């Protein structure tokens, strides 16, 4: 039976898994989860995963959450080219180091910029205060500086000459603020060049297509406003912005 992967391409970790599976032509069934409709809070989704996040992989009876775990599962199961997740000790360590660091840094900061612009108005009933947005952008800037100066340096990709899952996971996160009309890579030619290299390796058309839903932010706002179920979840989101 075919592997199922539960995804909403507005979510960066979903895009990372999607791009990897598609670029490597891994057979799977795309199961759409509509986050802006609060679908992850339905009883049905809860039966799949009590953590109520995307992406989720279902391979027979085996259910796996967490994009970095899913990516490594696909790497091991599908015997992909070594450079995606190098066997060599130090190169492997560089991938592990990036995948670990990014959660509370690049991922967290880029998402916050996006959520302040798209989710905040919905939950709080007004635009996010300038000082909150400025602080989020400043945090994002620090993460981007580290991406450039520590993880990438003068290499074409994070590990070295070849693309790995680290680059895929990083790229989808730096794209996220675009959904809030913020270009994280503005004034950063080195990172722009790296992003373009990553796009080329995965397939430019594929990457663009994967980011369509994200870039349709007005569509997103509409969906959220129209959804009565999501309205009920407002108190939960309040905490994130308090």
């Amino acid at each position, binding site marked *: 039976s075919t592997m199922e992967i539960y995804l909403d391409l507005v979510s960066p970790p979903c895009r990372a898994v999607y791009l990897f599976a598609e670029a490597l032509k891994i057979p799977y069934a795309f199961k759409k989860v509509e986050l802006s409709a609060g679908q992850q809070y339905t009883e049905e989704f809860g039966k799949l995963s*009590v*953590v109520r996040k995307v992406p989720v992989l279902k391979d027979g009876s*085996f259910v*796996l*959450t*967490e*994009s*970095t*775990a899913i990516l*490594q*599962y696909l790497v*091991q*199961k599908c015997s992909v080219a070594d450079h995606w997740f190098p066997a060599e*000790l*130090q190169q*492997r*360590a560089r991938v*592990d*180091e990036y*995948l*670990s*660091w990014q*959660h*509370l840094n690049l991922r*967290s900061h880029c998402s916050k910029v996006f959520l302040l612009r798209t989710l905040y108005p919905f939950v709080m009933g007004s635009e996010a205060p300038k000082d909150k947005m400025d*602080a989020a952008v400043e*945090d994002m800037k620090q993460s981007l500086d*580290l991406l450039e*100066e*520590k993880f990438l340096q003068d290499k074409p990709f994070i590990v070295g000459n070849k693309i790995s899952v680290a680059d895929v996971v990083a790229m989808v996160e730096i794209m996220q603020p675009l959904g809030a009309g913020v270009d994280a890579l503005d004034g950063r030619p080195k990172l722009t060049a790296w992003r373009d290299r990553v796009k080329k390796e995965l397939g430019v058309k594929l990457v663009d297509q994967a980011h369509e839903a994200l870039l349709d932010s007005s569509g997103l706002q509409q969906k959220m406003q129209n959804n009565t179920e999501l309205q009920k979840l407002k108190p939960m989101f309040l*905490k994130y912005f*308090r």
Partner: protein
Amino acid sequence: MVVELYLDLFSQPCRSVFIFAKKNNIPFEFKKVSLMDGEHFGDEFGKINKIRKVPALRDGDFCLAESVAIMLYLAEKFQTPDRWFPADLRLRSRVNEYLSWQHMAIRMHGSKMFWMRLMIPKIMGIDVPKEKMDGALEDLNASLTLIEENFLQDRPFIVGDQMSLADLVAIVEIMQPLGAGLDMFEGRPKLSAWRDRVQASIGKDLFDEAHQGILGAQDAMKQVDPSKLELFKPKILRLFF
């Protein structure tokens, strides 16, 4: 040349690396980085780890940050027993799943409680508003409930029937609030039983050695001159207010 591990045992990820290395008899040189003294902001440490966090590893010319990456590196280099990071696809995935989830969950929430209860009052001279404390405790409890109901369920350990990196990374985080006098095991018999198993697996002496510092944090903080901790103020303002 021996591996150098840059550690401050006040820090949860430093404790997991320390325990892992010692438990597996991995030879290393303990390089103390005192967070209280701001040593992680020094020039020397900046050369080891640009991210300026602990733990960090130096093996010859090779420097590595991030506790998970460090433990995986040591596991591979020193060929530690399979159960720490099983070769089996599904078991390994379960370890990876926990190691990924924990960053934005228990790690964040346990740390927050520790800072709010002990560090912020000491450094800022004020108590954190009750509403914020209650919110933080709620988040921490939600993470612990997920650990019990999703990651542990009815198993003796998170993955299979032996302790793995997942349990190690989990236990050091749940111990952190104790440093601020908050016992998150209280009222959670399942979690307490798991903690006992993990402690037994690690060995009481090693476990106690690793946690001696953090469990004495409240006393240690009484001795510290608050002005010494000025350097933490910007971080606190950004993260908590």
